[in-house]
């Protein structure tokens, strides 16, 4: 296997991009990544996108996006694993470069979610749950995560305030990210008095509906040294795992099993342990999700995710900073793009380009991206060399 570097990353301003279409949003981010890498071509492309068919009535993204990026006839594939589509696109790009099949590969992600009304978006997102055994009975994602939150509170004593503190921290971090959709700071009181969505989750516990894209350029380490003068960020671990699609089929609904297994695989490949990680971007689609996944990754002890947040361990100046970008909560959550945007943030941090939210001396970063209520997860570990 060849060693693989990330030599370029690109992300545009996320939000309700009423005046842009899916192709515009993707092409902007892809060109930013290509410029950042300083390459004049790409050999292959993977794009994560969860549901362009339901959101904008467009499938066949491999052709469309290669066409509008001006890269025909390169091979291209659209990757779908619900909200983990972006992370999986990056993993497949990594495998393609590592295997020697292609040299310069673009791994991107995109979602255009605001062309449908809220009920249309809720329906599209619900297709990531089990249609026959969950969705037909009326459950939506806020409902599923609300049950996980209730179970976590019951089992470990996690408090409503601790959930709110995840949102407060991530909006604080996002206030320093010029690309974030909701860079406003919030207080615990704001969160706890915001509109109820699914008890105990309120609107400020939920990630928003977002239009956005992100892209990364991968190539072999040998080639990377010739192409770029920027600090080289190497992918040292990659893990992908699945779990039951339906939440009710799991032994313990407070544990994200797919993240646990994907994390173990990535740590093993990287030869690292949780204590070696300087920062992590994780999938905080709801505040409770961040608490569950930092436990599953072993970044904090099981059952202590809420307490760790309350104690500031996951803050920018904490022991293990989580979601320095603002996370899905503040930065936004265009589902297919999220996994790639997490990688963009880690690369910026490892290169020392993260501005006011820079973690000093960061050497090793982790990304965790998951689909649905945890039915699939992708974890990557990167190191600056």
């Amino acid at each position, binding site marked *: 296997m060849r060693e693989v570097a990330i030599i370029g990353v690109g992300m545009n301003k996320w939000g309700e991009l*009423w005046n842009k279409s899916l192709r515009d949003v993707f092409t902007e981010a892809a060109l930013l990544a290509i410029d950042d890498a300083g390459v004049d071509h790409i050999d292959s492309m993977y794009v994560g996108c969860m549901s362009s068919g339901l959101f904008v009535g467009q499938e066949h993204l491999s052709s469309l996006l290669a066409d509008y990026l001006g890269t025909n006839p390169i091979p291209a594939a659209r990757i779908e694993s619900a909200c983990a589509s972006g992370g999986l696109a990056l993993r497949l790009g990594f495998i393609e470069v590592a295997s020697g099949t292609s040299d310069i590969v673009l791994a991107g992600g995109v979602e255009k979610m605001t062309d449908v009304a809220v009920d249309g978006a809720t329906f599209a997102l619900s297709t990531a749950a089990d249609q026959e055994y969950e969705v037909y009975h009326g459950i939506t994602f806020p409902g599923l995560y609300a049950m996980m939150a209730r179970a976590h509170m019951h089992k470990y004593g996690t408090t409503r305030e601790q959930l709110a503190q995840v949102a407060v921290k991530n909006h604080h971090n996002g206030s320093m990210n010029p690309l974030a959709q909701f860079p406003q700071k919030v207080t615990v009181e704001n969160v706890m008095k915001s*509109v109820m969505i699914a008890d105990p989750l309120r609107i400020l516990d939920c990630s928003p509906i977002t239009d956005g894209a992100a892209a990364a350029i991968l190539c072999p380490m040998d080639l990377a040294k010739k192409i770029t003068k920027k600090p080289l960020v190497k992918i040292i671990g990659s893990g992908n795992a699945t779990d039951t699609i339906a939440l009710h089929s799991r032994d313990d609904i407070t544990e994200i099993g797919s993240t646990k297994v994907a994390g173990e695989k990535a740590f093993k490949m990287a030869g690292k342990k949780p204590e070696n990680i300087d920062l992590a971007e994780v999938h905080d689609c709801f505040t409770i999700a961040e608490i569950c996944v930092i436990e599953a990754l072993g970044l904090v002890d099981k059952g202590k995710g809420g307490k760790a947040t309350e104690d500031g361990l996951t803050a920018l100046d904490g022991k293990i900073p989580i979601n320095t970008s603002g996370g899905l909560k503040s930065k936004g959550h265009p589902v297919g793009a999220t996994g790639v945007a997490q990688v963009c943030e880690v690369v910026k941090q490892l290169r020392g380009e993260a501005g006011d939210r820079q973690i000093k001396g960061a050497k090793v970063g982790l990304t965790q991206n998951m689909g649905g209520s945890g039915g699939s997860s992708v974890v990557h570990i990167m190191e600056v060399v």
Partner: protein
Amino acid sequence: MVGIIGYGAYIPRNRIKVEEIAKVWGTDANSYRKGLFVEEKSVPSPDQDTITMSVEATHYALKRSGIDPQKIGAVYVGSESHPYAVKPSGTVLAEAIGATPEIHCADYEFACKAGSEAMFVCLELVRSGSMEYALAVGADTSQGAPGDALEYTAAAGAASFIMGKDNLLAEAVETYSFMTDTPDFWRREYQYYPRHASRFTGEPAYFKHIIGAAKGILKKVKLEPKDFKYAVFHQPNGKFPLKVGKLLGFKREQLDTGLLCPWMGNTYSGSSPMGLTAILDEAKPDDLILMVSYGSGAGSDAFVWKVTSRITEVQDKAPKTKEILNNNKNYIEYGTYAKYRGKIRKAE
């Protein structure tokens, strides 16, 4: 010089509070009260519709104008709740006020700016000299589907204006229109209730067009927000007009007089025209007023009005808008409201 020679407004006496609607749908009334700045809204009685409210408002406009209705050359009613799909509202209105048969009549439709459209055309017909007086009405018994966000604001009311050349109480200093193809809110034939594109109705729709029209007319007349005593914008809720006013550089005291939505609701085609009537009720000679309507689909009509010395003679000749709004209120429960608004469907 052309402008307004008579004006009047009408609001049905029934009210329903936001809490009463929220209670039925299990929503948080405070998020509407604080988030959208709406407290209660007017509800038409079963025997009231766009035509009856237009007649009421026009009677007041005629009192203030003091003219012979036979001299009115055109009657234009703007609404998105004309009682008939085929058969004009304007014919009934014209007959009721004694303005027939030598009169041109048309019903207007452009979502919530149908009323200001009628005002715009009436001003130009008078300016052209083809008639002495023209009557413009904006009125709606607004529709909002049960449980939809619109239901908290969709209200009923009418504003009526008689345009002429002499004896003006407010001169139309300038007019300006701003329009694009923006599908934010619509209702197709045979549908009871309008549909809307949720948050898309905000920034790329309401704000873009009102700001476009306001900036356009201010540039045309070479005036700044500080030159105006009052400003009134379309009021889909209480929050949007205050926000757009602030974005344009107006202060709260310039906006408060014309702001009716928090206690009246959104009267669609009647919205900003009714706000203008509330301002005229209090205005003094030489006051400048900026009015900008908004209609989904989408467009805005902007007007700069300059109040004349005649205003003080007419203000008390008919009930004032805030008197109608604040007096003789009759609070109803959701069940009565549902019955009045035809929301209870009976089998044939």
